[in-house]
């Protein structure tokens, strides 16, 4: 059979399937359509292979895009399904990378180690009644000290959950600047003399304000803060670092602006 013919037959068959699906919304037909176009997902997923995610995961994500495309495809528009589905699938894959927790691609080995450390940090802290040393962690996980240090630094690559994301606005009781200023601490007063600093802090969400307060004014350790806020130590570290970054940048920007006025 000539190839052209074969394609035409195939196209007619899928068009029939689409017509049936749009009338019946039968999941069985949808499955068949998805199967029919899986090759497209595989083809597109491969293009994202080099970004450090396993291909199987990408195919899974891409399949979701394909299902969406099948649901929304309109035969009346006279475009090929593949033409229609490609941007949807690519979009899903891109969004997957964007929403991924890891902002910078980190080797899987380190990601896993990072998670393992995250898990045992709490246990070890409880057992030892203090924060563990690097070699204690390494021994527990049967890896080298260097690997632990590397994984520790890796947590930075975790994506910057926006400071104003839900975490910040979570029905936390309002934690206002007054909570800071109310502290009668000499250090604090000198710190707050500068209105720009106060300005900078005012843009932070409640969780970040709490972090600053606990860490720098109350002098709690990261472990203690993690327990207080009921988040992981690594999360405290990440948020703290991010908070300092924001403050520093904000202040540099304000200083630059001041200079311009002068």
């Amino acid at each position, binding site marked *: 059979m000539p190839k052209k013919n074969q394609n035409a037959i195939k196209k007619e068959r899928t068009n029939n399937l689409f017509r049936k699906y749009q009338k019946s919304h039968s999941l069985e037909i949808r499955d068949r359509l998805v199967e029919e176009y899986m090759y497209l997902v595989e083809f597109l997923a491969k293009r994202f292979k080099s970004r450090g995610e396993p291909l199987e995961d990408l195919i899974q994500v891409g399949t979701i895009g394909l299902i969406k495309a099948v649901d929304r495809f309109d035969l009346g528009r006279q475009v090929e399904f593949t033409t229609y589905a490609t941007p949807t699938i690519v979009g899903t894959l891109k969004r997957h990378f964007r929403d991924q927790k890891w902002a910078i691609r980190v080797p899987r080995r380190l990601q896993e180690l990072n998670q393992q450390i995250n898990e045992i*940090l709490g246990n070890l802290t409880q057992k030892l009644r203090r924060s563990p040393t690097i070699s204690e962690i390494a021994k527990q996980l049967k890896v080298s000290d260097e690997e632990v240090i590397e994984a520790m630094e890796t947590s930075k690559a975790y994506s910057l959950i926006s400071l104003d994301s839900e975490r910040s606005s979570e029905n936390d009781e309002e934690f206002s600047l007054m909570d800071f200023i109310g502290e009668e601490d000499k250090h604090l007063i000198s710190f707050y003399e500068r209105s720009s600093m106060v300005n900078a802090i005012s843009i932070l969400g409640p969780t970040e304000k709490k972090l600053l307060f606990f860490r720098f004014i109350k002098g709690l350790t990261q472990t203690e803060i993690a327990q207080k806020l009921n988040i992981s130590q690594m999360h405290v570290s990440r948020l703290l670092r991010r908070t300092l970054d924001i403050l520093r940048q904000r202040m540099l920007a304000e200083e630059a602006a001041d200079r311009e006025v002068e």
Partner: protein
Amino acid sequence: MDKTTSDSISLSVPLNENYASVLRLAVASVAARMNFTWDKIEDLKMAIAEAFLLSFRSDDNSEFNLDFNLFSDRLEILVKKSNVEAVQDSMEKKYSVFILTGLMDKVDIKPKGNNKYDIKLVKNLW
């Protein structure tokens, strides 16, 4: 290691933001060797990055020089002749000193003339 004598490590890093992670890894590895706890290593990493990032805002394209002095009971980080505008009399002085004293057990800033400063950061082992 005696309390009075110490091993020393000197580092010189270009004043370029990208090297902040090199310093973070370096201090982590030195501190891990000394058996610092996870929490304290996090503090050290944050402090060194803070000192570093606050240093390269001037036009001076010099390098960031620092020594790690390892004692049996503490780690001292000496940032040498930094031209940190941050330690001059600006609002950032307050900010950076605030952050650094919050993270370290002791912060000592000595003027070295010519708008240069030595910054000593001390973290006790226990």
